[in-house]
Structure formats: C-alpha cells, structure tokens
C-alpha cells in the first residue's frame, strides 16, 4: 500500500506538470500503448509506466509484457533521473536494459524537454499582466540566487585553498593522488619480491 500511495502522488504531480506543457502531452500521446517496466533493487520495487496524453500511469503491478525493462539499484535510478549527464549514468555496469530501448530513450527525451509554463497557469487565475509581473520577479530571483550560489562557491573554495590553506587545489590533489598510486604499485612489487625471496628453494633449477 505505501508504494501505491507514493506512485499515486508521483502520478498526480506529473499530470499537473504535463498539463502545463501541451507539447509534452502530445508527444506522450504518441507513446500510448507502450509499457515500460522499471525494476529497482535495494529496495525491491517494480514500477510499470504507461504513457498517454494525460501523463503517465504508474502501477506497481500490470498484467502485460513490457516493451522495455530497466533494472538497477534504486540509488542508480535516482542518479539517472536527476543527473544532467544521463549518458554517463547509462554506462554503469549495474544498470540492465532489455527489450525495445528506444521506448525508454523516447520517454527520457520527452521529459528532458519538459518546460512547465507556470506563467500561463498563473495567467488563468490572475490575468496576463499580474502573471507576467510575478513571472519576471520569479525569473530574476532565480537568476540572482543562481549567481549568488556560484559566487559563494567560488569564494569559499578560494578561501579554503589560498587564504586558509585548509584544502589543496584540484591540480595539487591530482598530483598527490598520482604519486600515492605510483607508491602503492611500487610497494606491491616490493611485497611480491620479498614473498618470492622468503619461499624455500624447491630445487627445480638445480
């Protein structure tokens, strides 16, 4: 039951988002009849995804053969959903894909292009002028927050590496890591040589 509650909530949120983007609804309608099974391990959970013009129907059980099955640990699935570099995540060895993978790629592309027109939704309730004013305010607020976050990140990084000398820079860290790696290899070789010297002579060369 908890998984059904979760799926119902996600389904509703997606439907709300898709209702604000008619183009996404049209593209999903073209996928009607397709069934995608997403199977997660740790925790074990199956989600059947059925696209249509109103969004996605999400079921924990559906009695039909899926067109495409995606299996992976839940953490990897979450990375796949949130990562900006999905191609990199798809190369992970723990991820298994079977069936018509084009269906999954198609669905992924649709959601990558999803653009929710919040201003249009607001305009329905408040009128175009007020909606545009609120939209502009929200956009400038978002830009300001993004700029501030980047600036703060840069300042903190500079302080920790240059001023406070608490952390090393990336180039120094990479050089140190390469030296440690080389040292580990040398130690392994030395260890192997010592083991060989400690072995009693079996006299095979005598």
């Amino acid at each position, binding site marked *: *039951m908890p998984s*059904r*509650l979760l*799926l*119902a909530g996600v389904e509703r949120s997606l439907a709300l988002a898709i209702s604000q983007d008619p183009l996404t609804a049209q593209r999903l309608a073209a996928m*009607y*009849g397709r069934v995608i099974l997403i199977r997660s391990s740790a925790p074990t959970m199956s989600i059947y995804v*059925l696209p*249509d013009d*109103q969004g996605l*129907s999400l*079921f*924990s*059980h*559906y*009695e*039909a053969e899926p067109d495409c099955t995606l299996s992976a640990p839940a953490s990897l699935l979450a990375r796949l959903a949130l990562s900006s570099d999905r191609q990199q995540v798809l190369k992970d060895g723990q991820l298994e894909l079977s069936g018509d993978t084009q269906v999954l790629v198609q669905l992924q592309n649709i959601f990558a292009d999803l653009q929710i027109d919040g201003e249009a939704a607001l305009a329905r309730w408040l009128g175009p002028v007020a909606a545009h004013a609120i939209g502009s305010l929200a956009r400038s607020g978002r830009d300001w927050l993004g700029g501030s976050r980047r600036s703060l990140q840069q300042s903190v990084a500079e302080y920790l590496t240059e001023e406070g000398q608490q952390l090393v820079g990336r180039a120094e860290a990479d050089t140190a890591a390469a030296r440690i790696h080389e040292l580990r290899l040398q130690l392994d070789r030395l260890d192997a040589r010592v083991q060989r010297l400690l072995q009693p002579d079996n006299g095979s060369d005598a």
Partner: protein
Amino acid sequence: MTDKSSSDRTTHFGFQTVSESEKAGKVADVFHSVAAKYDLMNDLMSGGIHRLWKRFTIELSGVRPGNRVLDIAGGTGDLSRKFSRLVGPTGEVVLADINASMLKVGRDRLLDKGVAGNVRFVQADAEKLPFPDNHFDCITIAFGLRNVTHKEDAIASMLRVLKPGGRLLVLEFSKPGNELLSKAYDQYSFTMLPLIGRVITGDAESYRYLAESIRMHPDQDTLKGMMEEAGFARVTYHNMTGGIVALHRGIKP
C-alpha cells in the same frame, strides 16, 4: 403448490428484514440521498484509502488498449475514469448504475474532467444486465454487490456478459481477520459513520445502513464460493487493510 411471490419473500436491508420488492426501493432512497456528497463522504470515511483500494483493482484488472470494460455500480466514476485512459480511443467503458442520481453525478463528474468519447452511461440492474452474451473483457463492481438483492443472479448475469477469459473483479467491504481490528472497526462503523453522515449530508440513517449492510455481506470465503458456484474459474481474493476490504477476482472459463 404455490410459489412465493417476491412481495412475500424477505431479505435483509441492513439489520432489518424487508420484503424483496421493498429492498431495491430502500437502497435507491439511500443513494438518492447521498449521491451529491458521495465522494466527499468516501474520502472522509476511509481517510482517502478507498482510492488505493481502487488503484489495486485497476492493477489486477489486466485491462489493455482496445478492451471493453463494464463498471457496475460505477457511482461517481473513479474506476471508469482510469479505465477510460487504459482502453484508449479504440476501447469502450460502460459505467452502469441502477441509481439515476448516482449515474448523473458520475456522468457530470467525468464530463467535467474531460473524460468523453469512449465512455457510455447506462442505467442498469446488475441482476439483469442489458448487454449481449460474451461482450466484455473485464467487469468490475466496487462497493455495489452488497446492495444487490439477489447476489447469485447478479454474479450469473456478469458471467453471461463476460467474454471467455474475461475477468470479474468484486471490490467490497468484508470481514477483518484480526479480532481486535474487527472490534475497533465495529466501534468506528456504528458510531463515527452515522455521525459523519449527519454532519456532512444531514442523513445519519443512510450511513447506519452502510455499516449494517457491510456486516450482512458474505465474508471472503463465502463470496469466493458463490463465484465458483456461478461458474467462475481461478477465483482468488486479496485482503486489504486487514480484511476490511477484499478484492475477489474470477475468470470466465
């Protein structure tokens, strides 16, 4: 030798014993009274869990694009709305209810939600379904069977209109498996339900009937036996919320 007429035969209406001819009228009065606030009351009474029970019903229905589905006692159309999405433009959903008020609320609600094109609304008696033999891929009856006077006749009628291989799903209140839960549920049903009914709809009696009719409804195994007796194969049931509700599924051989 004389047959008893239906006016002589008796049945139960909640905890009361009434003549068979009276029951349908009394049940109709209950639903005429509650139709307008049916959804709100369901949410209040079940804490919204009825939506999850219905979701599970959809999952077990096996309905696919192009299927023909009959939603008996469809009420305000919760199941029909979802089925309409699943069967798509090539399929058909028939929302049937014996009660005109409930059917009207269901039709208005679905039209308001933009559900149209593949849904038909039919006022029909579950005991005498007005459809051809072997017509539907799936039939559901959610929280409706306990209000039917002759349950055996209704199950036989559903079997007739199902296609071979088609599924009947009966979602209905049942008997909790745990004694403690059963007592708590009884307390809730006979005190809270009429109270909520009085506050929200101004009608405590209809909700007292609801609680009583649940107690008079066959338990899980009895209903399973009735479905097998009618001719359904592979009959199984799934208890939900500790057996407060059960979903029975049978296949027409």
